[in-house]
């Protein structure tokens, strides 16, 4: 049973969808549930091709509502379960993921963003930030990692399972169609060989002992009769979520020490933003960059600690202000102009960011 999918380090040149499958295998995932949608299809294809050897399972459901709920069911059955989706599929999954949020289930969802709204394009966007962070009729008690490269796709797919099972909040790897379809080098490895602890998968129901006598009952509910019952449950989840933020938030910075212009980007756009910094600095513009890796929870303290000497903030994203709004919320009370380079569903190059910054700031 315990055949290690990856032994030693292996360098490879593959697509992001393949990388995600290797990441899920390395993380010890038991089962994938899914319904086809571009650009995540090949995650299902590779998973089904690779995993019989490792005695893992797969279930193709009739739609994404079902894929979401079967993932919830898999977790309830004590399995390390995950699914992958995009665009309209992500919309349909929100009902199940709200349930996971309510019941504190460690579901893992890979989102490969495509253009929207609706069917939009099958290609690429960063328009599923709101939906992935705050979708559902709840408070967005989720953990969302936004990746920018194949190496991160591998690292954060592993991390997503560990975070989910450690803290019991629904966890997401927010990727995009570019990362899914592009090929670039990656090093895959066995996480335990790297000293990464694999958080155990545990049964949530049918535990040993008599409920109420030898142990507390596993009373997983998504329905409450009284408003104060619900209020107390949500309040306690919020409290727990807030208490783990400092352990979960991740971000990256570059050239921020003397920065007057701070460029903020997440995911694959952060690569273009980082490259733009160098060319802006060559032209004498003191630019720096901040990249939230966790979009939920957002690294608010880290961002606020950087902006004291910043004159302008530029948010670059392949959406119309979804990251920009998060940034504005987290900089409430600071009097710094924030401008957006907002390109819904469009890829962003370093040159475009450089030109935008120069033009907007008349530098």
């Amino acid at each position: 049973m315990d055949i290690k999918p990856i032994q030693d380090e292996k360098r490879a040149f593959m697509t992001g969808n393949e990388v995600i499958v290797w990441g899920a295998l390395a993380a010890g995932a038991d089962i994938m549930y899914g319904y086809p949608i571009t650009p995540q299809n090949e995650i299902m294809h590779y998973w089904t091709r690779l995993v019989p050897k490792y005695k893992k399972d797969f279930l193709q459901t009739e739609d994404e509502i079902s894929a979401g709920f079967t993932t919830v069911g898999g977790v309830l059955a004590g399995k390390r379960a995950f699914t992958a989706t995009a665009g309209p599929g992500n919309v349909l999954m929100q009902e199940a993921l709200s349930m996971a949020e309510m019941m504190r289930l460690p579901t893992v969802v890979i989102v490969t963003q495509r253009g929207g709204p609706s069917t939009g394009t099958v290609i690429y966007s960063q328009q599923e930030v709101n939906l992935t962070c705050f979708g559902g009729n709840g408070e967005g008690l989720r953990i969302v990692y936004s990746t920018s490269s194949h190496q991160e796709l591998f690292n954060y797919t592993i991390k997503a399972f560990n975070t989910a099972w450690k803290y019991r909040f629904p966890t997401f790897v927010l990727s995009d169609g570019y990362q899914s379809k592009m090929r670039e080098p990656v090093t895959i490895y066995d996480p335990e060989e790297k000293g990464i602890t694999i958080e155990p998968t545990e049964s949530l129901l049918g535990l040993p002992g008599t409920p109420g006598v030898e142990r507390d009952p596993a009373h997983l509910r998504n329905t409450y009769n009284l408003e104060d019952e619900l209020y107390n449950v949500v309040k306690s989840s919020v409290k727990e979520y807030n208490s783990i933020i400092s352990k979960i938030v991740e971000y990256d910075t570059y050239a921020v020490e003397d920065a007057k212009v701070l460029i903020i980007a997440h995911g694959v756009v952060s690569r273009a933003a980082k490259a733009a910094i160098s060319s802006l600095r060559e032209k004498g513009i003191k630019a720096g960059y901040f990249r939230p890796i966790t979009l939920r929870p957002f690294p608010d303290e880290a961002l606020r600690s950087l902006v004291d000497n910043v004159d302008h903030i530029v948010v670059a994203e392949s959406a119309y202000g979804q990251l920009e709004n998060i940034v504005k919320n987290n900089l409430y009370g600071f009097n710094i102009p924030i401008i957006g380079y907002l390109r819904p569903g469009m890829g962003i190059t370093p040159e475009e960011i450089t030109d935008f910054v120069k033009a907007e700031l008349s530098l």
Partner: protein
Amino acid sequence: MGQNIKIVLAGEGGQGVQSIAEIISEAAYNSGFQSLYIPNFGVEQRGGVSVAFVQISDQSVDAPKFIIADIVIALSRRAIERVKPYIGEKTLLVYDSSVDDEVEKIYGKLGENRQLSIPALEMAQKEVHPRVFNIIILGVVVGVAELLEKKDVEQALERRLGHKFAQDSSLKNLNYRALELGYQLGQGK
């Protein structure tokens, strides 16, 4: 000065544009370069112009997409117009001689160092086989880009088509000849 090359390939679905891009980017990766290949996989899957973006660099590659390419290879009439956004002042446009008139119509005269008309379609039909047209183009790209060793490309070709070569050894010969023909056309241009 680091080495960094941006290539756009465009053609009709079935012309093998994505395969060429995949082989080149993999060959580059195997010879120690950083490389990134991304297909433009939108409606092209349904019969439009298929576009592939390849970046090869000795440093890590920034964004998956770019605007201005160093080399643009356009293999069909429709592709000639489709690649217009990627052509800058120094871009080399490579195209099949069968669409010379289209290039003239859309771009006028680009200048000797900026355009390369290659009789790949004719050559594939007369000298090798129409099915290895894309391998001739692969050779042209390798020759023009002057970044990769031919043997690394042959290895990448082997990895991709090795199972077919094993079934029919004449296929290997055909592909290698096509690669060489293309290479000769592109080299030094």
